[in-house]
């Protein structure tokens, strides 16, 4: 069978994947103000990781990610659901946005951002789960 990636692709992936991941974080962070957001960012990240998968194979991706993508789905969804809850603390309806400004640096944290992070993780997890599962079937093919 064909090796997982060519030398050129492997090197390109090593350079591009950090770039793509960084870019995805960038999209995530500023999504509230400019085009982007958790979903788009998640897709970019997942695309980048898929590139890594194609270039370096499953084991390398596993080593890179350190968690199973399936965990990411659950984690992302959990973060998303939990981000709706702080509103209750203030006696407001579900999903009411809460904004906290960290004094000094002027950094803003908000439940919509946390929600978006949840979306981001869940999207990465979902896309990667599917793609990895599909790549696995290739392996089955080899075995057969």
């Amino acid at each position, binding site marked *: 069978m064909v090796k997982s990636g*060519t*030398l*050129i692709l*492997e*090197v*390109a992936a*090593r350079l591009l*994947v*950090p770039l793509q*991941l*960084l*870019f995805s*974080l*960038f999209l995530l*962070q*500023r999504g509230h103000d400019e085009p982007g957001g958790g979903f788009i960012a998640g897709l970019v990240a997942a695309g980048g990781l898929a590139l890594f998968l194609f270039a*370096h194979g499953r084991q*390398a991706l596993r*080593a*890179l990610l350190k968690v199973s993508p399936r965990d990411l789905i659950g984690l992302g969804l959990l973060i998303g659901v939990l981000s709706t809850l702080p509103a209750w603390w203030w006696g407001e309806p579900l999903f009411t946005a809460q904004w906290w400004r960290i004094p000094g*640096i*002027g*950094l803003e944290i908000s439940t919509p951002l946390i929600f978006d992070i949840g979306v981001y993780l869940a999207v990465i997890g979902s896309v990667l789960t599917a793609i990895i599962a599909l790549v696995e079937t290739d392996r089955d093919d080899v075995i057969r």
Partner: protein
Amino acid sequence: MIGMMWNLLLGLGWLLLTGDFSGANLLTGLVFAYLVLALVQPRIAALSGYAQRLPRLVAFVGFFVRQLLLANLKVAYDILTPPWYMKPGVIAMPLAARSDFEIAFVANLISLTPGTLSLDVSDDHRVLYIHAMFLGDEPALRRSLAELERRALALFR
């Protein structure tokens, strides 16, 4: 050392991308860059001594852009005129580049240069197979490819 370089670089890239040159944003960028690097660290090839090579880099970019423009015109001309002047073929180019990164860099540069296209590297990494569009003067082509490789490698050595 290399990690810090990359970190700074990516952090600055962050600044550029966001276009918001505040301290807080730099911090954000550096933190994100750190996170990314921490994630991919074990897999990054050597990039030592990046800073000293900046002048060479500028010179190289100039050289490359000139090549790009000239050769592009040549291809464009052939496309726009009815008969084909091209004499394409696949040639093997022995590589001076050694590390994976160098090889990939050279190969991609060659691909970007009009008239040549990297097809693949041999399994022992010694030869780059190139599809060339104008093989009319093969020795000249080989010379210019070698020149390109030399200048590119000079960036890292």
